[in-house]
């Protein structure tokens, strides 16, 4: 309904179709929401023409300098403090690590109440490509617990402030190392302009940019999942390749050994008795 406000949804696995990721029903909100004040959509104001200069760095002409005032300095300082505040709190972590057999690895993050968070994980290599995952909130209450899962996505809103903990466990496996990828998104993306002082709404150009940005993020998200699935497939194929070679050579050797063994065994049945019986017979 509002042009430029719709954003492409993030992806979640579809349970009925293993290996398929589909957009989540919920639509992500406007990414540049400020913690300080909420932006209300207003019809776009007529925009002044952009200053001369190309979009690429080398041939850009700098704009003219503006006079500096005391209240502007105060505002700038306040916005700088806000920038420092916002940037750490609205981050996401995406890591791939190796989980040895019989091991458990936990990660912790401090989350502010009311933040919407998403945890996604996928096992890339190792054994049956499954892992136990457990997510606990600040008081130790279990929010999410799944055993032997290959991939999953879990969204929750932090009910209280504190340290949230999520653990991956490979304790059920005796000798396979697992490589696990996880993506823990806390809050929304940081705004592009921390010193955003605009009260007016986005222009059509900027709305178009926002839409494109969200679309690209979705594409990059798809690419990540595709890359992980391809890595998993390739790991299985390489396993298969080495197994085929190993067992083919093994079987050929077993074949030779068994056939030689049969002949030797048969010879041994007939060697001593025959000589005695022929002596007796003659």
């Amino acid at each position: 309904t509002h042009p430029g406000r719709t954003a492409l949804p993030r992806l979640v696995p579809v349970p009925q179709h293993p290996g398929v990721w589909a957009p989540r029903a919920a639509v992500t909100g406007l990414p540049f929401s400020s913690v300080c004040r909420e932006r209300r959509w207003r019809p776009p104001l007529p925009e002044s023409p952009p200053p001369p200069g190309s979009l690429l760095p080398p041939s850009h002409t700098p704009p003219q300098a503006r006079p500096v005032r005391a209240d502007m300095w105060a505002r700038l300082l306040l916005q700088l403090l806000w920038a420092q505040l916002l940037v750490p709190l609205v981050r996401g972590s995406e890591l791939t690590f190796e989980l040895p057999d019989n091991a458990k690895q936990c990660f912790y993050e401090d989350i502010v109440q009311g933040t919407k968070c998403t945890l996604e994980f996928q096992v890339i290599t190792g054994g049956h490509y499954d892992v136990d995952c457990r997510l606990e909130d600040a008081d130790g209450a279990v929010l999410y617990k799944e055993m032997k899962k290959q991939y999953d996505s879990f969204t929750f809103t932090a009910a209280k402030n504190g340290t949230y903990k999520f653990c991956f466990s490979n304790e059920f496996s005796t000798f396979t190392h697992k490589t696990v990828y996880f993506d823990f998104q806390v809050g929304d993306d940081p705004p592009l302009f921390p010193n955003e002082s605009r009260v007016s709404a986005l222009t059509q150009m900027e709305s178009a940019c926002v839409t494109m940005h969200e679309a690209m993020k979705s594409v990059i998200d798809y690419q990540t999942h595709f890359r992980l699935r391809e890595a998993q497939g390739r790991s299985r194929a390489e396993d298969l390749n080495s197994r085929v070679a190993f067992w083919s050579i093994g079987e050929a050797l077993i074949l030779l050994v068994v056939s030689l063994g049969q002949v030797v065994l048969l010879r041994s049945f007939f060697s001593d008795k025959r000589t005695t019986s022929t002596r007796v017979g003659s």
Partner: protein
Amino acid sequence: WRSEQRSGMRWCGAVPLAWLAVQLGLSGAIYFHIGETEKKCFIEEIPDETMVIGNYRTQLWDKQSESFLPSTPGLGMHVEVRDPDTKVILSRQYGSEGRFTFTSHTPGEHQICLHSNSTKMSLFAGGKLRVHLDIQVGEHANNYPEIAAKDKLTELQLRVRQLLDQVEQIQKEQNYQRFREERFRQTSESTNQRVLWWSIAQTIILILTGIWQMKHLKSFFEAKKLV
């Protein structure tokens, strides 16, 4: 506009307190615990010519106060980065807080390993270390406000620059995908060949050993005058 600014200022009055809270505890990235000699490795599968920036911060467990100290001098972390050919491209010692950067020259799985390496061995004494880690890859590693200030871009220009960076990252990833698919195809074809040739070889071995067995036993029994 003025009234809105005033109300905005009132709201933003909570900033210094929140800022303090951030500095003390809540500064952002995910953290985990690491033992004294433990080495933790993270894998980043990235296309070539991609920049990776890693930030970490360490805190030592203090037995007396039963909490993690905010920062400890003398504590260090050794960071080692290996490229897909297991060649070391970065191997450096940093302090208790550090930032490491590298750019990939070959596409593939890069391994980032961290292990603690403190100058004063008595610091540890069986305690554990808390490591805050944040790794940003490719386009996420860019600091847009800094770029805007350096190149003096307007808002629209900065947004378009961000889109250009994103498109470039997508292109690189697609290229890398082609390269990986080729490797996958080679592996599959190799498996196919192996299955084919080894099946034929095994059938031949089976037939030949059968024939040899029969001939050998026949001559053996003839020599024994049983046949």
